[in-house]
């Protein structure tokens, strides 16, 4: 077999679908939304053609989709869904239920801006908005990584040391609809890699009775039927499981690399030209991909710059990032999202992680590419150069800075300009 035969050319959404087929998901429930829809369309094709033995549950909304997944997962089966933007927002409540019940559901997000105004293009606002629901969260930079990360996600989420639902995000259109070569692994090798699900729950079995009281109280309840933890104990447990899951993420990533010969940094972040770097760009997904070009261009100018492309966003790998940044002079964070009223979300997260360092780097954040605005290498370069200047003056800028804004093209902003339709 020659090299070209081992690869198939496909869009990111289909790479996600092929991973689900490889993982032999048993129940899929989803509602169509741009730019995610081709994932589930492909999965339903697999089911109809008999290539995948699974049930596709058709529902009337994303909220119902995730409710169906929660119910299915609670009967002990491998469960998957995918969504974007408003679909994810509609799922918010159920995200909390899935995590709170430690259901190892895997979900893909083809990232997309959240309205208003209406937009179908990418940014990372949707994924970051569900930060605190208790899902593991990973980001991808290419279609092969989507396929590989999804395969790992099932194994991580279902590990008895973890049992936490897992989100795998990739940029809408930039990956979801872009054709790239993807190497698909033989079924037998995937079966070896992902053991059958051993769920902690099987509500299908009426004889297994666990809890005792219909409402989880603030206190521990002791009755003849047994002892039930309070709400507090359940939530403590979720946080502990998240904290410890970092070890599993690394372990599963390393196992995958050993078995399939492909790795993504250390499974937590991907370092690019970091060996002698004293300036570092910190970003995820499409922004990280674009930054690779920036690194090459700036290195050609003699600037010792590197990239940390964050792969694991939740649990946030603070300890690992402190290790990376402890000897770094300057950090530039590019956020394709805003924590409205404060600043970029990645920027906040990284600063918080680095607070423990004795010698903290100079760190500056920028907003880029909201709602699919093109993120150009030159724009990012300007951000890096500006940061270097600010650092020299040791100047801190209070206001959030947006790169690639085109306010100058809005005539009505000019003196005497008329306010037009679409203001």
């Amino acid at each position, binding site marked *: 077999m020659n090299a070209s035969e081992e690869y198939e050319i496909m869009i990111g959404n289909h790479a996600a679908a092929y991973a689900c087929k490889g993982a032999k998901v048993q129940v899929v429930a989803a509602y169509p939304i741009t730019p995610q829809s081709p994932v589930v369309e492909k999965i339903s094709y697999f089911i109809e053609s008999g290539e995948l033995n699974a049930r596709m549950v058709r529902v009337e909304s994303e909220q119902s989709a995730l409710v169906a997944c929660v119910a299915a997962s609670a009967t002990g089966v491998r469960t998957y869904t995918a969504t974007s933007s408003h679909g994810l927002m509609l799922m918010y409540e159920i995200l909390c239920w899935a995590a709170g*019940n430690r259901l190892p559901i895997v979900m893909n997000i083809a990232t997309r801006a959240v309205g208003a105004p209406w937009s179908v293009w990418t940014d990372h606002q949707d994924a970051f908005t569900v930060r605190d629901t208790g899902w593991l969260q990973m980001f991808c930079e290419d279609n092969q990584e989507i396929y590989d990360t999804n395969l790992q996600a099932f194994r991580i989420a279902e590990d008895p040391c973890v049992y936490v639902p897992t989100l795998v995000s990739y940029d809408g259109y930039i990956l979801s609809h872009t054709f790239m070569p993807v190497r698909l692994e033989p079924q037998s090798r995937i079966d070896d890699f992902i053991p059958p699900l051993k769920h902690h729950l099987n509500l299908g079995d009426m004889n297994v009775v666990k809890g005792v009281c219909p*409402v989880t109280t603030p206190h521990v309840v002791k009755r003849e039927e047994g002892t039930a933890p309070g709400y507090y104990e359940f939530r403590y447990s979720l946080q502990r499981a998240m904290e410890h899951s970092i070890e599993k993420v690394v372990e599963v990533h390393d196992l995958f690399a050993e078995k399939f010969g492909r790795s993504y940094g250390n499974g937590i972040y991907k370092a690019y030209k970091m060996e002698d770097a004293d300036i570092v760009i910190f970003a995820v997904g499409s922004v990280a991909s674009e930054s690779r070009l920036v690194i090459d261009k700036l290195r050609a100018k003699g600037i010792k710059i590197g990239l940390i492309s964050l792969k694991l966003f939740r649990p946030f790998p603070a300890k690992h990032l402190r290790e990376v940044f402890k000897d770094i002079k300057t950090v530039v964070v590019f956020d394709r999202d805003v924590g409205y009223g404060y600043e970029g979300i990645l920027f906040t997260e990284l600063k918080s992680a680095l607070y423990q360092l004795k010698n903290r780097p100079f760190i500056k954040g920028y907003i880029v590419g909201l709602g699919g605005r093109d993120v150009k290498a030159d724009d990012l370069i300007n951000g890096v150069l500006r940061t270097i200047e600010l650092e020299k003056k040791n100047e801190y800028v209070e206001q959030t800075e947006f790169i690639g804004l085109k306010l100058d093209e809005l005539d009505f902003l000019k003196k005497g300009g008329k306010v037009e339709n679409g203001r």
Partner: protein
Amino acid sequence: MTEEKDYQKILASVQKPVEGEAGKTGSWSTIKPKINLDKCIVAKMEKNVCHFCWLYCPEPIITRTIPPRILYDYCKGCGICVEVCPHKAIEMVEESEL
């Protein structure tokens, strides 16, 4: 095998309703469900063939027995059993008519 940690043991909050969880709810209402054993299919066939009332009662104080019985001390009179009975064997009556 390493010992399981607490976060591996405290997992889903799977709850089963238990009798009298909310105290003696029998005082909440003046009308109560009454099973007409001539109509109840379980009572007539002397077999576990229905028990919808047992399954749906939120308290849960209808017994899964032949015939089903209602523990009135905890019956809050919600009438769900009346609604779900496929044989219309249950009706709400004044407490004095029980």
